[in-house]
């Protein structure tokens, strides 16, 4: 039997604010436990939340980047449950009146090509603290630095048909949110978290299968692996005549297995109701349009503009726009006067190696443009330029200075060139005779010998004619 897989993802991203959702405490990551706290995020008696406007703005920006409608009126709600890392005994979130609904964007599916996926809603909420089970033997410690950190919860529609599509969805979603300046989207720092819903059904049937939810996935690769494991588990169950139970699961990255969470962790009656401490969130049409106008150019538009405006291939434009910083760097190099195709090649080649290691570009756009110009002018060879680049990345010098210091400036001086040509002709009399008797393809070999004698410094544009003149007997 063939099976159809239905996957929908719920993604939480940390909104990139300096302060928390409802108080002025810092959101900085990695500080000592319980140092970024105050009466509000500790839930002390009498403290009240005050919404962070910047968090609302970033959430609205994210919603607009995902094609959602941002509503002029939305409502904060309390989600009630007891847990030691939840200081108030409820989380402030949004429930039946979220900030935004109904988005869509395109992703590239390996199986189905370009497909459109939907966003059911994007709403704002506060994060809980962190329970640390390994700090104090036999006890649980609580760190409330994260409590009250602003989040956007993004609920995707059940549009994905494979674990690979789920991964493609996450990659595209992250790119959009990073481009729009909404979130850093770093899974390592916990600023992007994924829960995945999956069900399977016999191909062609319209009724949905029972879904399960895999919680707290910690990397895009593990989202894909966990979904593959769960798809296989559900299919095996159904093929054996069993039924899938609606459960929450966790994924063990070490074993590649999913296992059900204890039912206590999974089943809650959250008793949502509007938070009476917070008036309805009312946004004017102008505010929403201002926020839309602030949106930077998004990846698809930028890819199209780079391809047409700079004459790049679709592939190159795609690589250069895969991250906003890469595209920014490319445009800065081009703006410094570099030929756009050379700039693209340099960035996708030498520069990308360093970027992938360090997450930043070590050579300023102006210096990379300067180096490209030195190659174009024939002042350094392409091979030599790679050495200059490596040195610049480490030393931070100007391209011409580095080329001079490394002795990589090409020699055009006719006397010097003639000297190297004479040496080659003297050293290779047999090849010179064969050339003169019509074996002209030996010109390449002899030119190579000139370059070798000059230790690569001879400018080929000068060396070749000088060699030819001597060979023709002038």
């Amino acid at each position, binding site marked *: 039997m063939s099976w159809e897989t239905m996957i929908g993802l719920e993604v939480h991203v940390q909104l990139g604010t300096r302060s928390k959702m409802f108080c002025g405490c810092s959101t900085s990551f990695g500080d000592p436990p319980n140092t970024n706290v105050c*009466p509000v995020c500790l839930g002390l*008696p*009498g403290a009240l939340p*005050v919404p962070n406007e910047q968090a609302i703005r970033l959430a609205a920006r994210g919603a607009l980047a995902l094609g959602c409608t941002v509503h002029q009126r939305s409502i904060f709600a309390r989600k009630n449950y007891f847990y030691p890392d939840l200081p108030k005994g409820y989380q402030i979130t949004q429930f039946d009146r979220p900030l935004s609904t109904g988005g869509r964007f395109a992703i590239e599916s390996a199986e189905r090509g370009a497909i459109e996926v939907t966003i059911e809603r994007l709403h704002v909420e506060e994060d809980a603290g962190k329970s640390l089970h390994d700090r104090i033997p036999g006890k649980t410690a*609580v760190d409330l630095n994260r409590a009250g950190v602003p989040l956007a919860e993004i609920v995707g529609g059940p549009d994905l048909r494979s674990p690979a599509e789920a991964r493609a969805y996450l990659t595209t979603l992250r790119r959009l949110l990073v481009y729009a300046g909404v979130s850093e989207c770093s899974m390592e720092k916990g600023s992007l978290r994924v829960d995945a819903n999956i069900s399977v059904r016999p191909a062609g049937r319209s009724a949905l299968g029972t879904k399960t939810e895999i919680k707290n996935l910690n990397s895009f690769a593990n989202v894909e692996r966990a979904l593959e494991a769960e798809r296989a588990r559900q299919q095996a169950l159904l093929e054996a005549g069993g039924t899938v139970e609606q459960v929450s699961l966790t994924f063990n990255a070490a074993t590649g297995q999913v296992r059900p969470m204890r039912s206590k962790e999974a089943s809650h009656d959250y008793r949502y*109701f509007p938070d009476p401490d917070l008036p309805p969130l009312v946004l004017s049409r102008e505010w929403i349009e201002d926020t839309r106008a602030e949106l930077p150019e998004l990846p698809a538009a930028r890819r199209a503009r780079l391809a047409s405006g700079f004459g790049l291939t679709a592939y190159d434009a795609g690589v250069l726009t895969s991250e906003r910083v890469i595209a920014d760097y490319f445009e800065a190099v081009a703006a410094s006067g570099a030929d756009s195709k050379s700039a693209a090649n340099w960035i996708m080649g030498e520069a990308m190696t360093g970027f992938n290691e360090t997450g930043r570009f070590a050579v300023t756009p102006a210096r990379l443009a300067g180096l490209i110009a030195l190659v174009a002018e024939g002042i350094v060879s392409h091979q030599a330029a790679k050495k200059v680049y490596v040195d610049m990345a480490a030393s931070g010098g100007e391209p011409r200075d580095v080329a001079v210091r490394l002795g990589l400036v090409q020699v055009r001086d006719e006397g010097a060139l003639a000297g190297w040509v004479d040496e080659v002709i003297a050293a290779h009399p047999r090849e010179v005779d064969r050339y003169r008797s019509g074996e002209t393809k030996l010109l390449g070999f002899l030119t190579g010998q000139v370059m070798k004698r000059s230790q690569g410094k001879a400018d080929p544009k000068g060396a070749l004619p000088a060699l030819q003149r001597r060979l023709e007997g002038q």
Partner: protein
Amino acid sequence: MGARLAAASGLNATLAWSGEALAAEAARADAMPARGALHGVPVAVKDNIVTVEQPSTCGSRILAGYVSPFNATVVERLRGAGALIACKTNLDEFAMGSSTEHSAYGRVLHPLDPERVPGGSSGGSAALVAAGVVPAALGSETGGSVRQPASFCGIVGIKPTYGRVSRYGLVAFGSSLDCVSVFGRTVSDAEGVLAVISGLDPLDPTTADRPPLEPQSPPASLAGTTIGIPREYFPADLHSGVKAACDSVIATMKELGAKVVDLSLPHAGYAVPTYYIIAPAEAAANLARFDGARYGARQPADGDVRALYRATRGKGFGAEVRRRILVGTYVLSAGYHDAYYNRAQAARARIAEDFTRAFASGVSYLFTPTTPTPAFKAGEKTDDPVAMYLADIFVCSANLAGLPALSIPIGRFEGLPVGGQLMAPPFAEAGMLAAAALLERHLDSTREVSP
């Protein structure tokens, strides 16, 4: 001040105070560069309003000894105006009650009759003002918890418009209803305190950005004022002493030139049931934070964190608080949410519309009895929660509708004070207070009424 507090100790109205703290308060006020509007005026503060200098227990074992790291906005404003925080006052636990019998620290006695209750939940503050210990005190209202004890104790109680006074530092009970409110011996005393504490607070997003409350001098008459008398507040079985006192006020209003009109607030009967769904629902969430994990009294427990919660909350909360948490959890739970919470919200909207319609018809203020009876005896209603809840039948509508309202003493029946209530449109406190001050001048509040 200290001597007066000590002399009144038999009322069990105070929770935390000390002579040294009082001296420090006085020295602080004297050292201020300019004399504030309340320079040197001692003000007692209900113990669900947090203060740095004294513990804030909310009358609960679960917060025994809890000291807040910050002052409530209203406390900051009082001190900024030169007032002295005289003491913290006893209350029904977490402000849940109508008699100040539900305190973990014992009941408060009525200053005129120790057998009776002072009303509640702000009974400690009311008793201290009535006993002449302080000229004014802060209480809080969720469903009449200042006006009802003001009526029982024969003093003035003002509940402002929701949003007029910051709730920052008021320990939440029913957040959409809670208002810091004021007791005074006279309208003027209470008004002076209200003017100081009112106004926008960036720490409370539910405060309103309105011009400050400016105390007005009372008008010469009530000419041009229309007083509405909602018939639902004068049922046939209304206590005869209360009815007689109200009738004489209505006669005085007419003598002062007011036009008095009969009218109907048809949804008035839904106020108590609506209140007892919405307030507990919000309370159940608001009190979830008292779990022994971070502060307050933690009960020892073997087992997992749930055992800790059970022990701490089971032993830390009194019976009335537990009852309301259970009710509040129930009315929000899956399957009952629509039938209770959502319908209560719809009823609340109807109750508010009744008032909007009345005021839109040209009525300036509404006049009603504050309570159905004078102060009752201690123990009389403690075994019958519904009878206790009905003590708030005339006061809780103003909380549901967010309206300003006040109670002034209008006479005595068998020696016990009777209170009359004025209710006004949102943010119309100034006019309502001026009218109340004029009535105060023309009423002998200690006169025995004869039905």
